[in-house]
Structure formats: structure tokens, C-alpha cells
């Protein structure tokens, strides 16, 4: 069922940026998910806020845009637009900052040597929006966060926190799966963090009401600021990148190395891939996966060619 479109989660930066646990795809072509502390299994998101920074860390010919979007409830979203998102790249080139934007895209995670995970969004679309649309997003996201908090609270009182246990206690199938994994990976969430995001959103939406949930005021505004540096200049994402990133790199290499039209020689491909941080072993896996997808083939054993 690869055709089914994944849900675009409405999620605040505080919840998204701490969704460090990844459910890796079990099979090729199947989606992977970042699991949030409230149990959202996230492949795609719909986020919004103020685009505060944009920077082309690629070249004019091959732009690689990085941007930061300030979540009105606190925290930052990080976006990375590569050459495989031409529509979003065109918007990034033209857009004047700062401005209100919404982003629809896939979530990518990146883990460094110290086992710290950062989350960024790879946008399919970056859209400039007005205040009303931003407020609609705030409301939808606050409601959606609240719904997850409620389910999490329900789960807290259920003894058997396995997926089946949660389902038989009345949680929906997908919710049960996400909540069960979140509890196992992170334990009970700090609900104050999410109440605070909802409170900030409601304060913006209801300026005339004195919205106050009585939360401790010294609560940190946002999770620790995150610096998301690319590993090296032009590589979309090297060793830590997801398999999709690596496939993109390999496809690109195949094109570059195919000088005589009979494909890219294996040994050269291996050298080039190694220089991008992809081992021979990984290369083998990637080319198999690309063959499965029907994107490349082997004209003979020593060559690999893009279709």
C-alpha cells in the first residue's frame, strides 16, 4: 500500500524536536516514522511560523537551502531543501525573510556520534501565508496536541501498556501503537511542556481572555537551541543521512560517471561513494534497493546504469 499518503501531523516544535526515536522502514518503499513523546508516529508534518533565516549552503547551480522557522509557541523548526525539492527550492530563492510560512514535508532525523538526534523537515512545499492561516494552524495544532495529551493520560491509567493492552482498553489501533512505543522509549512525558505550548497558542488566539493554566512560570521556553550544521558543503547529508538521501547521492553519481552511455563502472562508483561517506557494503544495499525500485539496472556485472 505504498500509494497511501501519510498523515501530515500538526505539531509544535517542542514536540517535534524531541521525537528522537525512529521506527525504521521494515521493507523498501515503506515509510519510516519518528515517534514523538506523545505517541505521534510522524512521517510527514504540516508546520507553520515565521521564517527567520534562510541560507543557500549549496551553489547557485545546485542550491541547498537551509532555513529556520520560529514556532509562535516557542522553539524552532529546521528545514533543509535540496535539489530534489525543486518547488520548495524555487520558493526559498524568491521569498523575503522574515515572513509567515507554512511547510508541508517529510521529517528527517540525523544522529551524531554522541547519539544526539536532530530533527529537520524536508519540505515538498513552502508557502507564504497570512495571519489568519497561521492562526488556523495554531488552533489545529493546539487541538491536535491536546488530543494526544488526552490519549497519553488515558494510557497512564492502563496497566497493560502493550499495543494490544491499550487497544483492548479502548485506544485506536494507530494511537495505541504510537503511545506504547513512546512510553517504552521515553517514559511518561513532561506534560507541562505541551500544556505550555497549548497555553501560548490559546493566548495568541484569545487575546481578550486571560488564558492561564497555572503552570510554573520558570518552565523553559523551548527545548535547548539546536544548531543543525551540515556535515560538509555540498553533500545533502552524508554518513548520518537516511537511506533515501543516500539513494539520491548514488543516483546522482551514476549519472555523473556514465560517460560512455553504458553505465557507471562499479569500481569508480565505489570510490566516489566512499568519498561521500558511503561504504562498499552500503553501496551494495543501496544499489539493490534501487534495482528493486526499477530505477537502475546492471547492463553487466561491472557496470550499473540509471534507467
Amino acid at each position, binding site marked *: 500500500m505504498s500509494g497511501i499518503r501519510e498523515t501530515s501531523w500538526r505539531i509544535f516544535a517542542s514536540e517535534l524536536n524531541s521525537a528522537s526515536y525512529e521506527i525504521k522502514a521494515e521493507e523498501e518503499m515503506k515509510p519510516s516514522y519518528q515517534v514523538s513523546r506523545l505517541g505521534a508516529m510522524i512521517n510527514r508534518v504540516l508546520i507553520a511560523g515565521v521564517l527567520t533565516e534562510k541560507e543557500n549552503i549549496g551553489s547557485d547551480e545546485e542550491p541547498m537551502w537551509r532555513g529556520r522557522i520560529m514556532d509562535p509557541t516557542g522553539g524552532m523548526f529546521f528545514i533543509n531543501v535540496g535539489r530534489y525539492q525543486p518547488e520548495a527550492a524555487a520558493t526559498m530563492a524568491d521569498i523575503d525573510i522574515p515572513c509567515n510560512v507554512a511547510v508541508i514535508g517529510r521529517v528527517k532525523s540525523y544522529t551524531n556520534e554522541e547519539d544526539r538526534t536532530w530533527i529537520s523537515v524536508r519540505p515538498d512545499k513552502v508557502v507564504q501565508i497570512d495571519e489568519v492561516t497561521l492562526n488556523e494552524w495554531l488552533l489545529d495544532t493546539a487541538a491536535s496536541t491536546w488530543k494526544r495529551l488526552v490519549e497519553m493520560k488515558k494510557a497512564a491509567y492502563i496497566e497493560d501498556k502493550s499495543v494490544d493492552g491499550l487497544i483492548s482498553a479502548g485506544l485506536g489501533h494507530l494511537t495505541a501503537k504510537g503511545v506504547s512505543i513512546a512510553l517504552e522509549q521515553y517514559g511518561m512525558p513532561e506534560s507541562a511542556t505541551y*500544556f505550555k505550548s497549548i497555553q501560548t497558542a490559546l493566548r495568541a488566539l484569545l487575546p481578550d481572555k486571560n488564558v492561564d493554566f497555572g503552570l510554573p512560570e520558570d518552565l523553559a521556553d523551548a527545548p535547548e537551541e539546536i544548531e543543525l550544521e551540515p556535515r560538509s558543503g555540498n553533500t545533502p547529508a552524508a554518513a548520518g543521512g537516511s537511506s533515501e538521501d543516500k539513494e539520491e547521492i548514488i543516483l546522482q553519481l551514476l549519472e555523473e560517471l556514465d560517460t560512455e552511455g553504458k553505465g557507471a563502472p562499479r569500481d569508480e562508483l565505489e570510490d566516489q561513494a566512499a568519498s561521500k561517506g558511503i561504504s562498499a557494503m552500503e553501496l*551494495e544495499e543501496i544499489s539493490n534497493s534501487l534495482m528493486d525500485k526499477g530505477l537502475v539496472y546492471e547492463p553487466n556485472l561491472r557496470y550499473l546504469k540509471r534507467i
Partner: protein
Amino acid sequence: MTDPSNMNFEPLVKELYAALDGKVSEETLQKELVKYLVTYKTGETIAKDSILKRYSGSRPSGTYVSGASVTKKIGELEGTELSVTVIGKMVFVDKSVKNIKGVEKTLISGILADDTGSASFTIWDGNGEYQKGAVYTFKNAYTKKWNDKIQINIGNRGKVEPNDEVVFDSVASSSSASFSTGGSATDVLIKDITEQSRSVNITGVLSGVSSRVIVVKGEEKTIYGGIIADHTGKIQFTDWNNHDLRDGETVVVKNAYIRAWKGIPQVNIGDNSTVTIAETKLNSVSTGPSSRTVEEVMKAGGGGLDLAITGVIVDVKNGSGLIKRCPQCNRSVLGEECSAHGRIEPVMDLRLKLTVDDGTGAISAIINRNDTELLTDITLDEAIELAREKGDMRHVTDRMTSTLILKKITVYGNIMSDDFGPQMSVRKTEVVSTDLTAEAGKLYDEVEESLS
């Protein structure tokens, strides 16, 4: 998952060997399987698909050559079998005529059960006659998985034979398939009916009751169908025996069974079902469309009748904007050539294929010209003019896309599901303007109440 290095490859090798008509040696297949499953851990489906593609040039299509075929219990089926023998009791069987790629085709479908489980089946050659309740051997069947449910298929090379030797006293009544073996039925609200529902009792009001004549075992039979509604939604029903049902009546249907078509659950009033007139009339039945979240639709099976979904447009897909249609068959065409009618003078039209996402899931929504004009504020004439000016129809799509993305809309219509997910042919579209203050106030009250 089982550790692949301890796996017994023999059944898989035999299956592939049979599927490839013995053209590839078992030794080679064994080696390939080890490569895929042990070295690269691709999982069984990909391994089989890839190996078949490599050696036969085609992916599994259900036309495998018979050969040594494995026998399995229904509970053991994985949905990836290419050639398998299954023995089971037909607890339900039905002949239907489907329009497949413009050709009318008769096929037989139903539910097969043994003591380990049950699964739906389709016999793609609809010529045979089968007896409900009898035991059959399905030879060289192939299986598929859809929505986590196994389907048994008999293609060109498969065969179904009566089996008098095996007797099933009690077939599995709980399992993926939706049928009743006479167990106790549960009272349900219509919105809670899913394609997994088994035996159900429903109270609701009838409408649109009509009859049609079908051919069963060479004999004509009149069946009745219509809509039954309660206050939570409406659902189609088929009355297989004439219960003299009439529009406007409130009835209590007991022991009906549910089958789904393209994800839309439907109520069947069969041999074991009873229908009585309810003592009190239901007043507040749902007459208009029923609001659902995408999550709820997916839970029901991926489809439903007369639904309303409110969400945000997150994508405008290819095939949206200004399109050309064949004047005879209304198919959309790319140039001036219709695949069915040859050279034609195409008619211009507007259409949108949107992805609408409500935060719980996403559906495809196909929107007609009238609503496209309404949503984009571009009329067909303006679109034609714009395309001529810019010399490119694509320009219309781009302009429409920029006005549509992130717009919040409600779409009304029936939802069906196939391999590409849930899809609605939209009957009516509305742009939603949210009363932000009111909605935010509601949320505030709700959160505060939980804290106090």
C-alpha cells in the same frame, strides 16, 4: 520476525521453482533467496518479487504455472503465496459481473474457512457453480494481502475442486474475513460498523428500497437493496430474501453480516437474518452527509457513503487544472487521440485532484469543473484564455495550485479505497471559514475543565 539464518528455505524454493515453471534450478533459487533474505534482509515479499522479476521478466500477476504446490491451512497463509493449495468450506459464495477495463467479466467470490481461520476468495473465471457450505480444494491459488487481510485468488492456472473427504465441523468464526457463522450478533451503531464487523444487529430507517434481478446458479432471483440509516450514519443493505421492506419504516435487523466493497461496508440480510418492524420509530436519523475524520473512515475499512471530510489541501496532483476530454466517452486525453475512439476533437474541461489532510489522515479528492471554478476563482473560459496566452496548459495548474494550497475545505461524497488509498468523487465542496475565537474558546474550556 524469524531469524533468516535459521530459516528453512525449502517451501520458498519449491514455490519459486513452480512459479518459474522449473526453468531455474532449485540450487540457484536457494542461493538467490539466501542473498536476499540473509545478506540483505529484504523480507520475503521483496525477495520473491525480485527473484521472479529477474528470471521471468515479470512481477507476480497470478498467472503462475502449476507445479509442486505447497498445502497450507488458511491460518498459515501469509498473503505472499504464489502457488498454494488450500482446503476449506465455502461459507459464502456469490457470482458477480464486474466491468474490468471495459470488458464485462463474471467472477465468483466469497469466503473460505477452515478450522484455523477464514479468508475471502476470488475465482477469476466465473464459469463454475459452487455450493455454499461445501468443502473445496483450491489448487495453485495465489494470495494477496490487502488491509492486513488475506485474499485467496484462483487465476488461469488455478483450479477449484469439490472435496468430499474433508469435513469441517466447526470453521473458525473469528478472523480477518467478515462473515457470520451464526454466533451471537452484537447491537451496533452504523458509524461503528467496520469491514471487520461480523454478525450485527441494526436498528434504522429504510430508504431508496428497490429490487433487481440477478442470476444465481443459472436461475433468476430478485433481491432488494437500499439504504438503512440511524442517527450516526447510513449504510447500503442487500436483502437476499424478500422481507417486504418499505421506505420510511424503522426496522430491527438481526444477525446481518457485513461485507465490504472497495472499503465501503455493506449490510447483508441473509438466510440467518431476521427483520422486524421496530416498536418505536426512529426520528433523528441522519439524512444529510455524515461528518467523519479520515481516521474513522480508515477504521471502517477505507470507505463509506455520503460522508463529509474537513481538511487542508496539502497537494494538488498531476492531472489537475485544464484538461482535454474525449467528446464521446469523457475520458481525459493527452493529445487529440482517445484510446477508445481514435482521432477526436477534444473538449476542454477543468478538474482538480487534491490531497485533503485533516491531521488524522489524507484522502484524494476529485473535484469537477463547477467546484474547481468556485475554489480557484478561475472559470473554464478564463483558463482556456490563460493557457493560450502563455502557450501552456501547465500554467493554469500552477496558478490554481498557488491559490489552493493550505485552503481549508469540506468535501462531500462517497469514499472508496483501492491500492492508492481512499478517494472521494466530490459531489460538493465548501470553503471553510473557521470562527477562530469560538473554536479556540471551546478548546480552552475543555483543557481548563480537565485541569480543575
